[in-house]
């Protein structure tokens, strides 16, 4: 596109004069300067974007065949699996795509946590990311209801019932969510409509996320700002090719699941059609919600009441607040972690330990979320939930007394060991070949 022949084309010039979209594309997608030292953990952002596109593409095609009407919804999914050309593939890609979307986004988030990508001046970028996570969760939850299997139905019932814990208006909200007095056809209809709508809202927020990203550019493993052109390289071809290679690796892993283990991450109960008269023995959400499900169930009955001496909120509401709070607290992270040092590489072992304990804590919560709430699982679940929130308290106080270390003077210094020539913006890599 930088080729002057293209920009001198009459049609291109006509459009460019009225809407400089080609210059914009050149600036934001081709020349866009990125730190030269990004490691493979930085692949997961663009990967998440690609997964979103895969989800929307397969979702639109599935919607052409799916019928959001309770008596036939389950049948219509089976028809897709059996009679629609490559319907089984669309459905398995979409179904497992949700799982992989969460895997990619969770890795992307832990990357941000480890390298301090949420810190000034990228706070808004981080907050938009949390908004994306919330939208993803809402979308995934409603999508899971659509096949109208046993877990779809009972999962919808349990989760929508949570809103009844809201004081005063809770019951009204639940009736409004259901479109009636129980989970039924109106619920399915509105969930289908919203499941189709929200990904596009998500797409718009992803655009904002990228807008905020491009203001200051990517953070990097050293967590220091770029000092000059020698610290940056153009996005294309360096990161386009690196992202494409990462995409290839991702697609191999994804295909292994889609083609050889397509139901491995799902619940067998969802191959039983929804039956309002038969409750499954254990109602569990999809694996990516398990940590939050564990937090929801961790709050003991009347815990707050007996602790405070009077009942402020009942246990159900407290559980709901804890569950949503566990995500909302992330939005405040830029102000909780006050340290000026972004990258964990230049923070003391205490912060590294804190990070890894938090990571393991999230895995423990996920494990507990899939277990029945009994015996040792309750105890472990409560400790893990308490630690989840305590982590942020610790981080708040520890980061305020943090002794700052000497940071590298520039990105290119450790990469080029001081004496490199500025490659970056002016390199023409393909000409060397």
């Amino acid at each position: 596109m930088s080729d002057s022949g293209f920009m001198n084309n009459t049609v291109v010039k006509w459009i460019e004069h009225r809407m400089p979209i080609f210059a914009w594309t050149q600036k934001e997608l081709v020349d866009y300067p990125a730190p030269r030292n990004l490691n493979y953990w930085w692949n997961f952002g663009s990967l998440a974007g690609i997964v979103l596109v895969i989800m929307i593409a397969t979702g639109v095609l599935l919607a052409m065949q799916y019928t959001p009407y309770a008596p036939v919804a389950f049948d219509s999914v089976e028809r897709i699996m059996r009679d629609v050309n490559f319907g089984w593939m669309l459905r398995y890609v979409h179904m497992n795509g949700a799982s992989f979307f969460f895997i990619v986004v969770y890795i992307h988030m832990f990357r941000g946590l480890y390298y301090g990508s949420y810190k000034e001046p990228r706070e808004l970028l981080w907050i938009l990311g949390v908004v994306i996570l919330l939208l993803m969760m809402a979308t995934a939850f409603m999508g899971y209801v659509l096949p109208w299997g046993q877990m779809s139905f009972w999962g919808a019932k349990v989760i929508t019932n949570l809103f009844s814990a809201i004081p005063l208006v809770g019951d009204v909200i639940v009736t409004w969510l259901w479109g009636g007095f129980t989970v039924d056809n109106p619920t399915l209809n509105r969930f289908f409509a919203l499941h189709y709508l929200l990904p596009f809202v998500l797409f718009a927020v992803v655009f904002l996320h990228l807008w905020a990203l491009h203001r200051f550019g990517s953070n990097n493993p050293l967590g220091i700002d770029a000092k000059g052109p020698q610290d940056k390289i153009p996005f294309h071809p360096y990161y386009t090719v690196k992202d494409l290679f990462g995409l290839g690796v991702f697609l191999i892993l994804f295909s292994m699941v889609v083609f050889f283990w397509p139901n491995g991450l799902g619940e067998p109960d969802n191959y039983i059609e929804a039956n309002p008269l038969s409750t499954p023995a254990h109602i569990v959400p999809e694996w990516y919600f398990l940590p939050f499900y564990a937090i929801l169930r961790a709050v003991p009955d009347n815990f707050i009441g007996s602790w405070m001496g009077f009942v402020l909120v009942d246990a159900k509401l407290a559980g709901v607040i804890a569950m949503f709070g566990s995500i909302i607290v992330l939005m405040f992270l830029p102000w909780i972690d006050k340290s000026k040092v972004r990258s964990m590489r230049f923070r003391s072992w205490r912060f590294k330990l804190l990070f890894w304990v938090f990571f393991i804590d999230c895995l423990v919560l996920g494990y507990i979320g899939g277990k029945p709430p009994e015996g040792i699982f309750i105890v472990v679940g409560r400790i893990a939930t308490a630690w989840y929130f305590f982590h942020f308290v610790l981080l708040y106080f520890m980061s305020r007394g943090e002794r700052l270390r000497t940071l590298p003077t520039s990105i290119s210094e450790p990469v080029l060991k001081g004496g490199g020539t500025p490659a970056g913006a002016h390199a023409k890599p393909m000409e060397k070949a």
Partner: protein
Amino acid sequence: MMKKLLIGAVAAVIGLSSSGSAMAAGAADPLPHISWSFDGVLGKYDRAELQRGLQVYKEVCAACHSLRYVAYRNLVDLQYNEDEIKALASEAIVIDGPDDEGEMFEREGLPSDYFPSPFDNDKAAAASNGGAVPPDLSLMAKARLGGPTYIYALMTGYTDPPADFELMSGLNYNKYFPGHQLAMAAPLFDDGVEYADGTPATVDQQARDITVFLMWAAEPKLEERKQTGLKVIGFLIIMTALLYVVKRKIWADLH
């Protein structure tokens, strides 16, 4: 980290599995390890097993259990030819209509018809089966923990209850059923069917055949899926290797 997360996810799923089967009256026995022809990346359905399984379904299971997502036309997968499928379909009596006089009428089944259900509705099914509705079998191989192996285990798991086990009247003891008591009596007996291909019809053989047949009923596109998967992954491995080479080349001037 990817790996750890995947392990976490797998651990969670295993967690679900073990919790799902632990029910009120005691955990069911762990399922036996059976290797199936459709296992693995090259897995395929054995046509002889499928045809025998269809026979077991028709002569045993179909008395109580429907198979509503399977149509006679689907039996091409079992390597029946068009005439055989027409003949199989014509054994069924289908209620069609209304005709030009507004009357419903009976006709012979066509390849486009779905397998008929043994009962008109769930109420009729429950009334004939002591209150328990025999579930549809179309998706059974995917709708239970353990999948197809669970079906095989259930078919072969009928034993006398342990001495201290209190079996409710009208229920049957099965060591693989969660809770151990189920309404269905042991459906398979040695030589309960006479196989058209002369295979000795032991309980074990019938259990294997019906399992393979029901796996096909639940996942008819399994072979297409695995064949496609091999091609897709083969392509992706080559493409990714090439991308890696390109990446190395492009980045060479930076290092």
